[in-house]
Structure formats: structure tokens, C-alpha cells
């Protein structure tokens, strides 16, 4: 099959030696997940030619269940972006409308699934990178609870927020893929021992669903919110109790997110210096100058911007003003979610405030691009799980319904998502 959407950076057909519930199933992998003997670039020139000598934990799990690794998918460089345009390998196109972006940063994985190239893919979600392209391409995407899936082998962008998650055509496949990758891994010290048994059943009746008013505020497209409200109506029809809730600290979410993730990224990306992998530095230069050249040439504009922002925010005299404040905001946001989820079994709202923009529309203005993450980042900050399920179209493009669960409450939101999916 030709890759007309530019969904892949590298295609591959590597069969795992095991056999199990994914026997013979082709799964595409976002190119920031380390795959032994398959080039892994994070869509960056700086990792061109890097072939990991080891598999990420999730890849080991997939192979053990008999999956076929069907290529490495395009993404925003190092996960930094919401459109999959920030790639050294060119933008990925949205299979639903090739003049539009697929969303990001796991746009290649979403396009591969939406375009029918595979039925399952893995993405990673730092601030919405699974759910955004899932919503914009019309597929299912799950961001697991922080710690539920091992990050070992996931090339870090913002360690304290990100999780690897399934992207699939339907909820049952999402549950199946999630059951394979969830569970404890001693190689990731933040991983927890919460496996998932994969027994997804349509179940929504009697559940209380909170609707945070902030998810229908300013900046949310009327077409999008209309579709999502219709979907919520459907859930009510299916027996759910719908209640209004509020997350007052959500106004801090974007700044807290962007401060923390740029800080962590500025540190994580320091190792890309040309010494052990990536393009060879100029050997006749003093090391300091050789590093500078490699990094200048190797990183794209958005990555350089975030490295500089994070470096600035961590510098002496600013750490307290930015990083420390962001951590404080993080606690407030987590508290808001915890409070709402004490009375509610889950929260619901749109995944993205708009439909997929046209190619080039968002990249011109980084601030506008950052704004697009407003409904996805709070979940990463709180650490809770969230799923995006297709719920109709607005302006002829897919809209995603976002269900947000309690910490380690994936089962509840998967069951609810399945109930919805089966009812429409």
C-alpha cells in the first residue's frame, strides 16, 4: 500500500516471535517509541540514522502477543506540535480531507488507522498527542493514567505528563491493545502495577457524568460543541446521569503545561549532541562549537523554540517564578479534577475545540497552536485517563467526544465509550 498520507517515516514488517491476542495483527508505531533494529527518529534530523539496540517495553509486549510492527509513523518532531507539520519528513495529511492536518503529535499513527493502513497503532500523549489526532481523523485514542503503561523506550519529551496509548478504529481494539501494553515494568520507576484485563463491555447506565463548563467555554467551535452535546444527550438516553461541574483552575492549565513540558524538554534534549548517535559532528572543532553546530542544524524551529523557553524558565532567578509556580498550578488542577471525580464517575466534553485546520493554518502562530491543546492538557496535568471517541462531524470533519476518568479508571471510560459507539 502506498503511503499517500505520508503517515510513515519508515515502513517495516517485523514479526514478533510470540503469539497471542495480537497474532498477525499489524500495528504501527509512533516514531518516538524505540524499536530494536528499526530506525527511530522522532521525526527529527538530529536522530537520522539512529537504530535503537533495544525495544521499548510496549514493543516487547506487542511482540510477545504476536503483533507485526508495521512501520514507524510520522509525528511532530519530538512530539512538539498539534498538527504533524513539525516533522523533518514533511507533514502527514488527514485521510478525511487531505488539505487538512491530521492533528498531532501522533498524526502519522492516526492517519495510518483512519486511512485504513492498519487497524491499530501506538501513539504517545503528552498534552493531547493521542487524542487530538484521534479526534481530527475520526478514530479512537486512549491516554492512559500516568504510570499505567511503561514509558521505557519512549523518547522523552515531557516525562511527567506523557503516556503511550492505543489509537484504533474502534473501542474494542483500543481495549485490546491497551490490555497488552498496560501493567508494571520494573524498568520504568514511575510505572504502577495496574494491568488491564481487556474485558470491555458496553456499560453506562447509572453512571454519573460531569460536564465541566470550562469545556464549552470561549473558543470552542459551535459545530463541535453541538456534536458533543448531542453525544452527551445520547449517553443520558443510555441511562447516564448528567451533572454540571466546574474546574476553576483550568485557566492555569496551558501555562502550567507549557512551562513544565518545555523545562523537561530542554533537559531531555540535551543529549542530542552528535557524540553517540545522530549526525556526526565536525571533528576539527572544539567540542562546544561542534555541539552547537549539530544542534542548530539538527533541531527544527518549534523544538528550538521549546528548548529555549525551557532553558529560560529553569535559569537562575526564573526557576521559582516559572517551574515552581507551574508545579503549584499542577496540584490545583489535579485537586479540581479529583473533586469533580469524587461525585462523578467520569467527565465529558469535546476533545478539541475545533475541527482539523488546513495545512499551514496553525504553524504560522505558535500561540494559537498552543491554544488548541486547552481541552487535552488538563488531563495530562492531572494524570488521569481520557479517551477520544468519534462523535459525528462538524463542517464535514470528525469531532471527538472526550471521556475523562478517575485515576486508573480506564475500564469505566472504555466501557462508556463502547456503549456510546455501539449505540450510534
Amino acid at each position: 500500500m502506498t503511503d499517500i498520507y505520508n503517515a510513515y517515516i519508515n515502513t517495516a514488517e517485523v514479526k514478533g516471535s510470540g503469539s497471542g491476542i495480537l497474532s498477525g495483527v499489524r500495528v504501527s508505531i509512533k516514531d518516538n517509541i524505540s524499536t530494536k533494529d528499526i530506525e527511530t527518529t522522532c521525526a527529527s534530523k538530529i536522530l537520522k540514522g539512529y537504530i535503537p539496540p533495544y525495544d521499548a517495553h510496549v514493543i516487547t509486549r506487542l511482540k510477545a502477543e504476536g503483533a507485526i510492527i508495521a512501520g514507524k509513523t510520522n509525528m511532530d518532531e519530538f512530539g512538539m506540535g498539534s498538527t504533524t507539520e513539525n516533522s523533518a519528513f514533511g507533514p502527514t495529511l488527514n485521510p478525511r480531507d487531505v488539505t487538512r492536518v491530521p492533528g498531532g503529535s501522533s498524526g502519522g499513527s492516526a492517519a495510518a488507522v483512519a486511512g485504513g493502513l492498519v487497524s491499530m497503532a501506538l501513539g504517545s500523549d503528552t498534552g493531547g498527542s493521542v487524542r487530538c489526532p484521534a479526534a481530527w481523523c475520526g478514530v479512537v485514542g486512549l491516554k492512559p493514567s500516568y504510570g499505567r503503561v511503561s514509558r521505557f523506550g519512549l523518547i522523552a519529551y515531557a516525562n511527567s505528563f506523557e503516556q503511550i496509548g492505543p489509537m484504533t478504529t474502534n473501542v474494542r481494539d483500543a481495549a485490546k491493545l491497551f490490555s497488552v501494553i498496560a501493567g508494571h515494568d520494573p524498568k520504568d520507576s514511575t510505572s504502577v502495577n495496574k494491568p488491564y484485563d481487556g474485558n470491555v463491555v458496553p456499560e453506562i447506565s447509572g453512571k454519573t457524568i460531569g460536564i465541566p463548563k470550562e469545556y464549552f467555554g470561549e473558543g470552542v467551535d459551535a459545530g463541535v460543541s453541538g456534536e458533543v452535546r448531542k453525544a452527551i444527550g445520547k449517553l443520558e438516553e443510555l441511562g447516564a446521569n448528567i451533572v454540571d461541574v466546574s474546574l476553576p483552575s483550568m485557566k492555569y492549565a496551558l501555562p502550567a503545561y507549557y512551562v513544565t513540558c518545555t523545562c523537561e524538554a530542554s533537559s531531555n534534549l540535551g543529549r542530542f549532541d552528535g557524540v553517540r548517535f545522530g549526525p556526526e559532528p565536525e571533528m576539527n572543532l572544539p567540542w562546544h562549537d561542534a555541539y552547537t553546530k549539530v544542534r542548530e542544524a539538527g533541531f527544527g524551529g518549534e523544538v528550538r523554540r521549546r528548548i529555549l523557553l525551557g532553558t529560560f524558565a529553569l535559569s537562575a532567578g526564573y526557576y521559582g517564578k516559572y517551574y515552581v509556580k507551574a508545579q503549584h498550578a499542577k496540584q490545583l488542577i489535579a485537586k479540581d479534577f479529583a473533586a469533580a471525580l469524587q461525585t462523578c464517575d467520569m467527565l465529558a466534553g469535546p476533545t478539541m475545540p475545533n475541527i482539523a485546520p488546513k495545512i499551514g493554518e496553525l504553524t504560522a502562530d505558535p500561540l494559537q497552536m498552543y491554544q488548541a491543546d486547552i481541552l487535552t492538557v488538563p488531563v495530562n496535568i492531572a494524570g488521569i485517563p481520557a479517551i477520544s471517541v468519534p462523535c459525528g462531524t462538524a463542517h464535514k470533519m470528525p469531532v471527538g467526544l472526550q471521556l475523562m476518568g478517575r485515576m486508573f479508571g480506564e475500564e469505566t471510560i472504555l466501557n462508556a465509550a463502547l456503549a456510546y459507539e455501539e449505540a450510534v
Partner: protein
Amino acid sequence: MADEDFTVIIGLEVHCQLDTASKLFCGCSADFRADAPNTHVCPVCLGLPGAMPVLNKKAIEYALKVAKALNCRIPEEGEFCRKNYFYPDLVKAYQITMGDNPLALGGYIEIEDDAGNPKVVNLTRIHVEEDPGRLVHMGNKERGHYTLVDYNRSGIPLIEMVTEPELSSPKEARRLLNKLRATLEYLDVFDPEKEGSIRVDANISIKGHERVEIKNISSYKGVEKALTFEITRQKNLIRRGGTISRETRHFQEGKGTTTSARSKEVANDYRYFPEPDLPVIRVSDWVEKIALPELPDARRDRFMSQYGIAVNHARTLTGDLHLAEFYELAAPVGAQITASWVADILIGELNYRDMPLSKVTSHADQFKELVILVRDKTITDKAGVDVLRVWLDSLHENGSPESPAAIVARLGLIREAGESFRGIVEKILAKNPQAIADHKAGKKGALNFIVGQVMKETKGKSDPREIHAMIAEILGE
């Protein structure tokens, strides 16, 4: 400016490699010194993208042992953080270390000041961090210089112990390091024999002036030398009316001097922040379970009470774990005589040969045999020293030494009664009338020369006390 106050203020940051089996954040073996470069590496200690640190709990346990032994306060939680800087030996461009929440705070070490009085030196903190890799500079002017990187050392656990600026002399600094080394050795967490296992940064200032940091001194001797050089440099600069600038200097081990580091190297803003890939450590939960062995001071006191030996002997013998163990092994043949033979004679002879004690410990029985020969006056003290030297030389050279008894027999060193040497004494007295005249004129020690001549002539078989008595008798005193 005769009464200018040149009070010296020194603080140390001591980094020791913890002697764990594996590295701090991965399973790679820490025992790399005999192996080829880059053979003890994995995705984690190479900093490969996606690899994550997993804490080696042993390292924390070791560090908490040290903290407890040094009387530190253990907080509830310890937290790793990242120290960000670029350098080719630093795989991730950050070092995982500890910042605001170290493993231990406060604490103290007791040493003696230069006058021999007890002195307490307070500690600021103790934390654990990872060692970077190692750069090996190669090439030459003709063929070009290049540098190789060896990551075997990358990720080896280090414990950093920081003292308050309370040391007053290079010798005090040396004594503090010795005490620290002994304590870590007693705790069985550190192997000082391993190359590069200790590195010291020293802050030094003259009271009222700026302080200077000397970085990366890698030996005990080096610390004393670097500080001594630096004090002279700073005093001279002040005397000439110059100002000490706050700077970092490197110690040139070969030359024994310090040189200013280029400002580019030190103008780092390390941008510390908590390591997101490691949970905080509930330190207080661990510390209860940690049991401490007998430590140097306790052992010193026990040696004095149990063996009745003098404080200086007890201090020397307990200042090194292996020495203390060796002493206790040999002490049954006579606690005091053994203390004196180990502390006063053996150590010096070993140092002279640059020979490790471990060579002797495996032949402790023969050493005991020697002490018994002296104790029972089978040989004289002087002959004993000669036998020890011959014995150590043979041990040093071929590892299987000739026994002291055999050496005594071969060299004919058995002590003989004074009477048999009367002829020799008389002969030497006759040859040295001046010495006798000096002695008669009341010059103290004038006869020692005569006695020494007799000892020499009798190959040490004579007892100097007996010879003294015989001379006195001959001279009619």
C-alpha cells in the same frame, strides 16, 4: 603588616565511589577497572533515548549508613534532581544528583587539630549522584590531539559529603579525609584502593578575602599539596596588595600547583529541577533498619581498654580498617609489643616499600613469629628490624617469604649475652678516646656512638642495654 590575620578557612566537598556491585541507575557491573573501555554499558548508562533510570537501592543504603555513622540528620524524603550542563563525558547532558532535598543534613566528624586537640568539623549535607564517563586525551602535537570517551564509569554511584568551612590547615583537611576514608571502609561501602575512587573539591580562603574553589583533586596527598600551594599563592597575592578573585582553579597533580580555570568552563547555570523519572525516596523509612558496625573511634577506645595500649598507638591502628584487623590478629602474642611493632615499625617499612598491608596480612603468622622472637629476647630489637626488612623484601619480591626464624638462623642473629662481646667493647672503647672524654665531661649521649659501633660490629646480636652497662663497668662508673 606583621600582624596581618592570615587565618585560613577550608571547606571540602568529598566524592567517593560507593562500592556497590552494579551502577546507580542500571544493572551494569561497577567492577570495570580491569576491562576494556565501553564494555560495562547499556542503554541507561549510555543515555540512549528512551532509557530510564532505576535506582540501585544498595547505593542509598550505603549512603544512609555513612549518614548515620557521621551523625547526620535524616530528613523524611530525599529527591533526585537533574544538574544540566553539556560535556562530552556526560551522556544525558545532565547529571542525576540531589539538590534541595539530599539524603542527609548536618552531622560531624571528629579529628585532631594541628596541636593534637580534638576538633569537631561539621558537615553540611550528604547526597548521592552518578559519576560521568571518563575522557582519555590522546595524540600529540605532530599527529593531532583527539579525545576518546569511556562510559564504563558513567553511572557509578558517588556519595558527596560537604563540610562546613571549618578546617584551618591543609593537614587538618588531610586528617579529615583519612578519618572519612576509615569510616567508609569500616562501613564496608568504599574501596580506597580503586583508582579514582575519591575526588575532592576544596574551597579555600584567607579570612576577609574571596574564596577560591579547587576542583577535582584525586588523591589525599593532592588535597594537602593543592591547599598548601593555594595558601601560599593567596598570602603572597595579598601581601603584594593584590585581590583574590572568586574563581575556580584546577589542581595540576604533577606540578603541585593550581591554575585558573577558563571562565567559559565555570559560567554554568545548572538549571536544577526534580528528576521526573524517579519517585522521591522515603528516606526515613529506611534508616531505622540500618545497623552500624563498630566505627574507628569506638574501636580506638576499645583498643585502649582491652589491650591497654597508648592512645597514639590505638589511633594509628584503628585509622585503617585492615590495620586494625591485622593488629587484633597479632595482638595475642603480646598486645603492647605488637602495637609498637605494627604502629611504629611495620607501617613505616611498608610505606618505604610502597607495599600494601594486604601482602602482610596473608602471612600474619610469620609476623607473629617475629614479634615472639623479639618478645622472648631471642633476638634484639635491632636484629628484629633487620629481620623484618629481609622478610618484607622477600615477601615483596616473590610473595613467599622466608620465615623470620629461618632468617635469624641464616644470618646468625640470635642474641648473645653481653659477656661474649667484652672483647669487642674494649676494642671500640680503645679506638674512641674522644667519645669517652666527652662522656666524662658530661656530654649526654656521647656513649651512644660507642654502643652503636658495638651493635654494628655484633650484627645486632648484642643488647644495647647490656652494652651500656658493660661500658659503665669498664669505665669504673
